[in-house]
């Protein structure tokens, strides 16, 4: 590993020790964050999968019903029935801060009771069924949207955090350790060199007198 290029001085040593302390602390925090995110992720992804299965099944049903409705009604009349503006569905979108990740929060605007936007005179029962099935599905769709988005964000964030943890654990901290070891050895060596020199000088002085 490429060791850090540092001057072997006491100043550098104390700086490095401080840096190492920060890195170790950051590493621990980041590791905890990662573990917690993974725990949450597993909960969400299970839910995501369950919702997704339900939605796909029910939506396919609703859509095939709509296809039948199209077949049983004339093209023009179905177009006419659906071109009336329905009460627009809206969501309340907000964010929630979880482990410093912005998580989306979506809630469907409650509309008081569901109404068909068209009259029943020219439309078939299949269309009613399809529309109703879709209306019932909508809250689930919104929940799916929220959960799926959370999963995406979490997966992304977990990946980033894992990289940081690994970089600290396997690169930064060993580098600091190595540099600290090197400086301590250099300083000790200097110390020893100094001591022998002193002893030698003392010896020489004693011989002279």
């Amino acid at each position, binding site marked *: 590993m490429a060791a850090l290029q540092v001057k072997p001085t006491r100043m550098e040593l104390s700086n490095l020790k401080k840096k190492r302390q920060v890195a170790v602390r950051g590493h621990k925090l980041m590791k905890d964050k990662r573990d917690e995110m993974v725990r949450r992720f597993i909960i969400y992804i299970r839910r995501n999968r369950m919702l997704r299965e339900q939605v796909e099944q029910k939506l*396919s049903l609703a859509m095939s019903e709509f296809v039948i409705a199209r077949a049983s009604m004339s093209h023009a009349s179905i177009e006419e029935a659906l071109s009336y503006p329905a009460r*627009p569905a809206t969501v309340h979108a907000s964010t929630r801060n979880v482990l410093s990740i912005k998580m989306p929060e979506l809630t469907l605007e409650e509309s008081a009771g569901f109404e068909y936007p068209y009259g029943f005179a020219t439309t078939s029962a299949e269309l009613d069924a399809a529309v109703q099935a879709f209306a019932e599905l909508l809250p689930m769709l919104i929940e799916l949207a929220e959960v799926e988005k959370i999963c995406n964000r979490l997966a992304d964030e977990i990946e980033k955090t894992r990289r940081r943890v690994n970089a600290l654990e396997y690169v930064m901290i060993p580098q600091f350790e190595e540099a600290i070891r090197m400086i301590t050895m250099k300083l000790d060596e200097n110390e020893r060199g100094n001591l022998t020199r002193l002893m030698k000088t003392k010896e020489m002085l004693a011989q002279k007198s």
Partner: protein
Amino acid sequence: MDKKKAGIAIIGDRDSVLVAKAVGLAVFDESNSERASKLIHRLARENYKVIFLTEPLYNGCSEAISKYKTETFPAIIPIPDSHGASGVAMAQIKANVEKAIGTDILFAEEG
């Protein structure tokens, strides 16, 4: 927290998405993935927080989708069209698991 009202959009071919109109979703009839990508960008600017996209289009617009994937909003969600689900969304979930955990430990036994 900022609570904001936002619209829901649905993009897909006519047969699949027209029914959503009766429920009050903003319906965009589009089956060309290039135009759909442009539409996604436009809708994202126009305060649509949830965009449903039929699976064939979802495959075609991967560039636009990946741009918004890691942002909080809008949520772009694949839905099956009138021909049924093709498994794109499930693959997406699997990919997420692999990305986060490193290996697919959750669903491996079934898949």
